[in-house]
């Protein structure tokens, strides 16, 4: 289920800017733990952002997106009360969705 994301969305002159931080280790599968055992890959593969029900951004990620990923983008529109949601799915099938309401 993962830990909650921090999403900030602000609308200025009809454009909504979204800034999200996601809590995820983004393990590449190339690192070893202190005992020398390989640490299995564990990273987000897919991200989908929606403005209400409309997809405003989709992304495919590899393991080279940094730990605790940051994502910023802008879409046209956005009014007070609208929802902006972000969903991620990782390579283990785990996923998490968080949303904010525009003010």
């Amino acid at each position, binding site marked *: 289920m993962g830990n909650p994301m921090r999403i900030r969305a602000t609308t200025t002159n009809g*454009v909504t800017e979204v800034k999200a931080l996601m809590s995820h280790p983004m393990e*590449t599968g*190339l*690192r070893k733990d202190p005992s020398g055992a390989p640490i299995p890959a564990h990273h987000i*593969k*897919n991200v989908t952002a929606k403005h209400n029900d*409309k*997809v*405003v*951004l*989709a*992304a*495919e*990620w*590899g*393991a*080279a*997106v*940094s*730990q605790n*990923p*940051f*994502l*910023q*983008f*802008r*879409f*046209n*529109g956005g009014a007070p009360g609208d929802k902006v949601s972000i969903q991620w799915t990782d390579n283990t099938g785990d996923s998490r969705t968080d949303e904010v309401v525009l003010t």
Partner: protein
Amino acid sequence: MNLHRRSFLTMSASLLTVATTAALWPLRALAQWVRPDAAFEAKAMDAVYASLGGVPEASSEIVFGTPEIAENGAVVPVSVTSKIPGTDQIAILVEMNPNPLVAMFMFPEGTEPMVSTRVKVAQTCKLHALAHAQRQVVQHLARDQGHAGWVRGLRKQRFVAAGVQLTINRSSPWATRCASAQPPPTASLK
């Protein structure tokens, strides 16, 4: 000329297509998007291009926001903006990473072709961005050719790339391949 890109895609088969490059970047509407796994698993830039379908043309219409020198390769802020009209996809690649393709972003109509994120960079090398753009160009055929009133739609597709040099002070710890080539200058005192 504010044509809807996605609805255009569905009728594109019946229209004359002009591609400016040999690129065969996966052309699917967002709903049918399939992750290009081979491109993510590719171990060199050429192989990434090959799995995406071709070599992009160089472009100065991609704008980067990256630091000239990054303190820590594990987290390097990167923003990429495409100034090419109709840009619907942006990809970020790091040349010397074990897998160069880092991320691909798809922008539906109404989303600015801009993204900002943070990536792992194994060692000092070039960071590349690819942009894919397609738009309908309405061509008015000249009257003297006897085609009065006809228009035809061209789907103009572009697949471009640009690179920017990044200096890494401290190598990303996960990068086994590159770290061995150049030991990170880690001071034990901080």
